[in-house]
């Protein structure tokens, strides 16, 4: 009888703990759904006044002009443009560092280098922005004889540097998951280090590395403060890397504070946020799918 009661107590306790932790786990789902609902609710009113096609493909963004124009093609292209530029910086740097850390660096070097690279991720983005504005932009302006240093090129470099830790850290994890047996088998067949790296290790870690790159893209496309301070902010369709541009995030950050609540401009900014959200959402799902396949391939997950 007595032991039965204790059993009951324990079971109740366990149930309570289970409940608490499921609530905690599901709370992020709750936030996600909440954010999606708000994004849709605040952006849909725009489309009763403006056609979706003229919003997505319109070439002029004059939200406070009379009559206002809400074409966000320049903003979308600006985001893609600086993200593409950032990729050109962060992929070689990030993957290169990951390969070095995993293949060449000794234990000591790795113990110092990896945390150092990860510290890059903990620098607040406004610091990067300030660095870009005060140091990088004037430097590039003089070096390349540009009319203005605040442009897509400068923004791409800074964004690329910011994405390096994401790419490096995930790619390095992927490389380290490649079982030692793969390497040993390759060496046993007489392949040298370089051949093993190119023919065995990188293909085996390939999808992990792709995940790293895609998460790097997400990081770059969603970054706000840096592009707001460094990209120049001109809402034109970029023709070269040296044009000032206005990515979607910068437009939202710069204009939301002064857009009257409930105005078309306000709804338009929410619509931009919705599109940005959908883009990063898709990227993250792709990354998740690839990395799941990767874990499966290496036998790391059931």
């Amino acid at each position, binding site marked *: 009888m007595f032991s039965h009661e204790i059993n009951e107590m324990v079971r109740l306790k366990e149930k309570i703990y289970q409940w608490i932790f499921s609530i905690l786990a599901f709370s992020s789902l709750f936030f996600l759904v909440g954010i999606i609902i708000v994004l849709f609710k605040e952006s849909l009113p725009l489309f009763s006044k403006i056609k979706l096609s003229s919003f997505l493909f319109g070439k002029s963004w*004059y939200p406070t002009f009379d009559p206002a124009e809400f074409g966000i093609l320049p903003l979308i292209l600006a985001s893609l443009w600086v993200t593409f530029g950032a990729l050109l910086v962060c992929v070689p740097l990030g993957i290169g560092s990951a390969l070095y850390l995993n293949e060449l660096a000794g234990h000591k070097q790795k113990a110092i280098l990896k945390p150092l690279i990860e510290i890059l991720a903990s620098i607040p983005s406004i610091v990067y922005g300030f660095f870009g504005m005060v140091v990088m932009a004037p430097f590039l302006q003089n070096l390349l004889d540009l*009319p203005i240093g605040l442009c897509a090129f400068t923004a791409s470099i800074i964004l690329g540097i910011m994405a390096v830790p994401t790419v490096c850290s995930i790619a390095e994890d992927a490389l380290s998951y490649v079982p030692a047996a793969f390497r040993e088998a390759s060496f046993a067949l007489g392949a040298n280090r370089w051949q093993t790296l190119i023919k065995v290790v990188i293909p085996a870690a390939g999808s992990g590395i792709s995940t790293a790159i895609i998460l790097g893209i997400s990081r770059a496309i969603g970054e706000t403060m840096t592009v707001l301070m460094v990209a120049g*902010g001109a809402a034109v369709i970029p023709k070269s890397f040296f044009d*000032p541009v206005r990515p979607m995030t910068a437009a939202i950050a710069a*204009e939301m*504070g*002064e857009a009257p609540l409930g105005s078309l401009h306000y709804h338009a900014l929410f619509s931009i946020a919705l599109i940005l959200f959908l883009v990063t959402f898709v990227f993250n799902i792709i990354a998740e799918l690839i990395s799941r396949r990767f874990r499966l391939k290496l036998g790391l997950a059931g």
Partner: protein
Amino acid sequence: MKAIGKLLLLGLMMAGLVLPCYAEKIVIEGSTTVLPIAQKAAEEFMDMHSGANLSVRGGGSSVGIASMIDGTCDIADASRAIKDTELDKAMTNGRDPVAHIVAMDGIAVIVHPSSRINALSKKQVKAIFTGQISDWSQVGGQPGKIVAISRDSSSGTYEAFGELVLDKQKPRADALLQASNQAVTQTVARTPAAIGYVGLGYVSSSVKALEIDGVMPSKETVLSGKYPVTRPLFMYTNGQPQGAIKEFMDFVKSEQGQRIAEEEGFVGLK
């Protein structure tokens, strides 16, 4: 330790009881251009009147006026006159916005100190900022691409410049948009090919202000109205101000209040 805790608690409770007894809270909201005047004036006003409770926020002229129409602020700062659409909305909400000019602001057109240009006509400035002119040689400067620097599309300075200089035409899309007057000054100071516009108070020795239609921007030319890019700065109240709001408005318009406006880089009315 415990006693201190109790004392603190008692203090907090008393503060909670006492605070609501202060005079009504005055909320000031609106233009970021007028913000420094409102902020400083509110501080000095509260120093002088121990019971006064003022809260000052930015947000922009449109936000300030909208808040006053909705009744969530008492004084709306604005760097432009109220629009007809806003006036209609105020009427339907039973509000009666009354304008008070609190200072004058001149918008200076600035270039890099190394520029050969010293003066432009208002027409030329308009042509540059609407995109008809895009090389300095077209206005007598060193040949090279003009880098036009503008303010964010919701800033009061942007709107005033659009009305006073651009005749409500669209500014060029490839103008760089900067978030504040300081940012425009800094960018122009670092960019030899740049041209920008800022409130008179933000002209520093690192940039060169241009003569417009033959008139140099200065306190005198702004106050006399000779300088063509001049605008009044407003505070709007609902009806004729009364009580504490009236006292504050009188303070802003007094010599001391106008000295504050001058200190913040605007042109006082006295």
